[in-house]
C-alpha cells in the first residue's frame, strides 16, 4: 500500500504505535477462541489446537477446564498434562481456582485455559481470571483460551436484550483487542438446537452470531491497524464504512444526519460529523449550526470542529486522516454561478478519489 508522502502521523496514530510496540514486548502470545453461544464447540477447538501443538513438540499444559467436559474433550485431556485447580470454599460457594503458582513453577510453553470469564474467590492474587492470563503472558507463557460473547463486558447489555439473561462473569473487550490472535467459532444455529436438545430461539442465536462476527471483525480491524502502524504503513483502507457529514448553517442537516445515521447502522460503520469554523458567522447562522451539531451528537456522531481555512482542503485532509468512505454534503443548486467559478462542491468532487460524495439538496432551494 503506498504511503502518503506529505502526511505526518497524527498523535492518535503515534499512541497506537507505542501501544503496539508494548504489546510486542509482552512475552507470551495470546490466542482467543470466541463463540457466540454455549456449545458451539469453542472449547473443543481450543483443546484440539493444544493437542496438535503438543504433537508438534510444543510444551503444552492445561490450566483450566470448564464444567463437564464432553467425551471428545475428555479424550484430548487424557493425552495432555493438566495442572489441577485448587478447590476453595468461600461463603458456602465452591470455587475451582486455577493454580497460578503451580503454572508459574511448571512454566510451560503454552497454557490452555478454558472459561476465560471467571471470578476468583476473595483473597486471590487477581479478582478475575483474565488478569491471571495477563500475568502468565507477562512471564512468557503463551495462552490459548476460549470465551463466549455473553461474557464480553461491553456486549452484555445487548446480549441481555436478546436472550433476557445476563452472565455473571465478564471480560473487558479491551482484553480481546490485545490478543495476538482471535478465532471465531461459527456454526449454524440448528446444529446447536439439535445438540442441546432444547427449542432454543433460532432468531436469538442468529442475532448473537451476527454480534460475535462483528466483534471479531472489530478486533481484526484493530490488529490490521496495529500491523500497519508497526510497519509504518499509513492505511487508507478498511472494510468498515466511515461516513462524514459536513455541516454548514444552511445545509439540510436533519436529512443528512438521518441518512448518515441509517447508513452507519446498516453498514455497522462509523458516523462522523464536522464543520469548518468560520470566523464571522451571523448570529442566526451560528444558532442554526449549533442546533445541527447538537442533533449530530444526539445521533451518536463523532463531532469534529475543524479550524478555519480553505473548506475543500480542510475537509479533504480530515477525510483522508479518518479514512472516510463517504462524504455527505449539502448543496443549493439554484444559482447558476454555483457551477460558474469552480465551486467548493465541484472541487471536492474532482479531488475525491477514495470516497463517494453524496449531495443533499438544501431544503430551501426551490
Amino acid at each position, binding site marked *: *500500500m*503506498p504511503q502518503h508522502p506529505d502526511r505526518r502521523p497524527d498523535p492518535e496514530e503515534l499512541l497506537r504505535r507505542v501501544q503496539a510496540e508494548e504489546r510486542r514486548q509482552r512475552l507470551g502470545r495470546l*490466542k482467543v477462541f470466541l463463540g457466540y453461544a454455549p456449545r458451539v464447540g469453542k472449547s473443543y477447538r481450543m483443546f484440539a489446537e493444544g493437542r496438535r501443538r503438543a504433537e508438534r513438540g510444543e510444551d503444552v499444559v492445561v490450566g483450566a477446564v470448564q464444567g463437564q467436559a464432553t467425551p471428545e474433550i475428555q479424550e484430548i485431556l487424557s493425552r495432555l498434562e493438566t495442572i489441577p485447580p485448587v478447590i476453595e470454599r468461600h461463603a458456602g460457594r465452591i470455587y475451582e481456582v486455577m493454580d497460578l503458582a503451580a503454572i508459574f513453577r511448571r512454566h510451560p510453553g503454552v497454557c490452555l485455559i478454558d472459561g476465560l470469564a471467571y471470578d476468583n474467590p476473595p483473597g486471590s492474587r487477581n479478582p478475575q481470571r483474565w488478569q491471571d492470563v495477563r500475568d502468565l503472558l507477562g512471564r512468557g507463557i503463551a495462552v490459548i483460551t476460549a470465551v463466549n460473547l455473553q461474557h464480553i463486558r461491553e456486549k452484555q447489555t445487548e446480549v441481555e436484550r436478546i436472550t433476557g439473561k445476563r452472565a455473571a462473569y465478564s471480560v473487558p473487550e479491551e482484553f480481546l483487542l490485545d490478543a*495476538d*490472535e*482471535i*478465532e*471465531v*467459532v*461459527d456454526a*449454524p444455529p*440448528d446444529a446447536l438446537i439439535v445438540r442441546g436438545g432444547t427449542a432454543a430461539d433460532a*432468531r436469538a442465536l*442468529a*442475532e448473537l*452470531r*451476527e*454480534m460475535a*462476527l*462483528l466483534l*471479531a*471483525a472489530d478486533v*481484526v*480491524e484493530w*490488529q*490490521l491497524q496495529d*500491523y*500497519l502502524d508497526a*510497519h509504518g*504503513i499509513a492505511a487508507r*483502507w*478498511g*472494510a*468498515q464504512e466511515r461516513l462524514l457529514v459536513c455541516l454548514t448553517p444552511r445545509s439540510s442537516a436533519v436529512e443528512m444526519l438521518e*441518512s448518515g445515521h*441509517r*447508513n452507519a447502522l*446498516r*453498514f*455497522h460503520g462509523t458516523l462522523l460529523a464536522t464543520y469548518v469554523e468560520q470566523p464571522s458567522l451571523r448570529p442566526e447562522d451560528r444558532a442554526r449550526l449549533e442546533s445541527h451539531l447538537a442533533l449530530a451528537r444526539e445521533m451518536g456522531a463523532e463531532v469534529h470542529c475543524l479550524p478555519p481555512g480553505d473548506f475543500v482542503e480542510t475537509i479533504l485532509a480530515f477525510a483522508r486522516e479518518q479514512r472516510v468512505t*463517504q462524504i455527505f454534503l449539502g*448543496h443549493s*443548486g*439554484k444559482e447558476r454561478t*454555483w*457551477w*460558474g467559478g469552480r465551486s467548493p462542491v465541484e472541487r471536492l*468532487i*474532482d479531488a*475525491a*478519489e*477514495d*470516497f*463517494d*460524495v*453524496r*449531495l*443533499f*439538496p438544501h431544503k430551501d*432551494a426551490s
Partner: protein
Amino acid sequence: MSQNHKGRLKVYLGYAAGVGKTYRMLEEAQEMRRQGVDIVIAYFEPHARPETIAKTEGLETIPRRVISYAGSQFEEMDVDAVLRRKPAVALVDEFAHTNVPGCDRTKRWQDVHTLLDAGIDVLTTVNVQHLESLNDEVWKGTGVRVRETVPDWVVDDADEVVFVDLTPHALRNRLERGVVYKAEKAQQAMDNFFSEANLNALRELAMRHAAHELEEKLTPPPAAAIEPLPGEMPAPEKGPARERILICLTGRPSSAVLIRRGKRVADYLQADCLAIHVANAANSSEPAERHLTFARNLRIATHVIQSDDAAGAITTFARANRITQIFVGRSRPLPWWQRFRETTVQRVVRQSRDIRVTIVAERRR
C-alpha cells in the same frame, strides 16, 4: 431462503485458500454419512493436501468428466452423472469456478443450481474475494483483482452460510509447513497474496459480510414500493417508502465499480436498485451493453433510453420512477476552453435538485 429450488444450499465461506473450508465440509459430510444420509462427492479439489484427502475416505465419488479444449484435457464436474445418481446431498467444491468452454454452463454455480433444481441438497465452498460486490474492496485491500466471481445473490440465496475461520498466523504457519501449497509456491504466496496485512483485510471483510448475511435474514425488508410500469406515474403511497437507487451507467470502464458500489449500498439499505443507460446516435452502445449485462447478472433492473440529453433523460426517468438516490460516476473534466459548460454530472445535480446524487469515486490503492 430460496423458494423456487427444491434442494437446500449450504455454503462454507472462508477468506483465503487453506483456512479449512473443504475440510469442514468433508467433516460434516462424514457426519451425515454416519447418520445414513445418501451423500456423494460430486466435485472435490484435493490440492494434494493429505489431511483433507483422508477426510474423503468412505465417501462415494462421482467420476469427473474429461473435456478436451485447446489441445489440453480438463476435468469438470459431471452434472449429468450426478443427476442420474440423484443422491440426497452432493458435495461440490469451489463454487466460484469457471468451467472450461464446451461445458453446458459457463459457471459452476450454475451447475449447482441445476442440482438444486433437481431436488439435490448441495454443500459448497467459496472465498469472500469471489463475491462480486466485494471485488473492488478486495482489490483495494490486497491489490489483487479477482477474475472468478459469483453474483452475491447466488450466495445470499443459500439456506445456510457458515463462516470458516482460521487466524492469519495459523494460516501462515500452515503455508510454511507446506500444508496448503508446495514449498516453492508457498514462499511466493506468503510474500504476495498471503501477506499478513492482506489476510487480515480479507478476514475482516469476510466477517463483516457473514454478519451482514445474517442480518439480512433477520430483518424484514421495508414495505415494498409498488413497482410502477416504465413511463407510468406511480400511485401515491403512504408511510416512508423504501429507498430507490438509480445507477447511471456508461460504456466507460469505471461503470463496473459504479455498479458494484450502487448495488452494495442498495443491498445494505434494502433498497430497490435500477440502472439506466442513455444511448445517443453518436455513441456506440456496445461497451455499455457489457455493463448492462453485468448489472442484470446482479439482478438489477436495467433500462436503455435514447436521447441526446443524458442529464435530462436521467432526471425525467428518476422522477417518473420515484428514485430517491442517483449514483453517477465522475464526468471526465472538460477541456479548459469549455470550462463554462456543465458536465453531465453537474447537470444531473442541478436538474434533479430534489433527489440526492452520489458521485462515486474511483478507488486507488
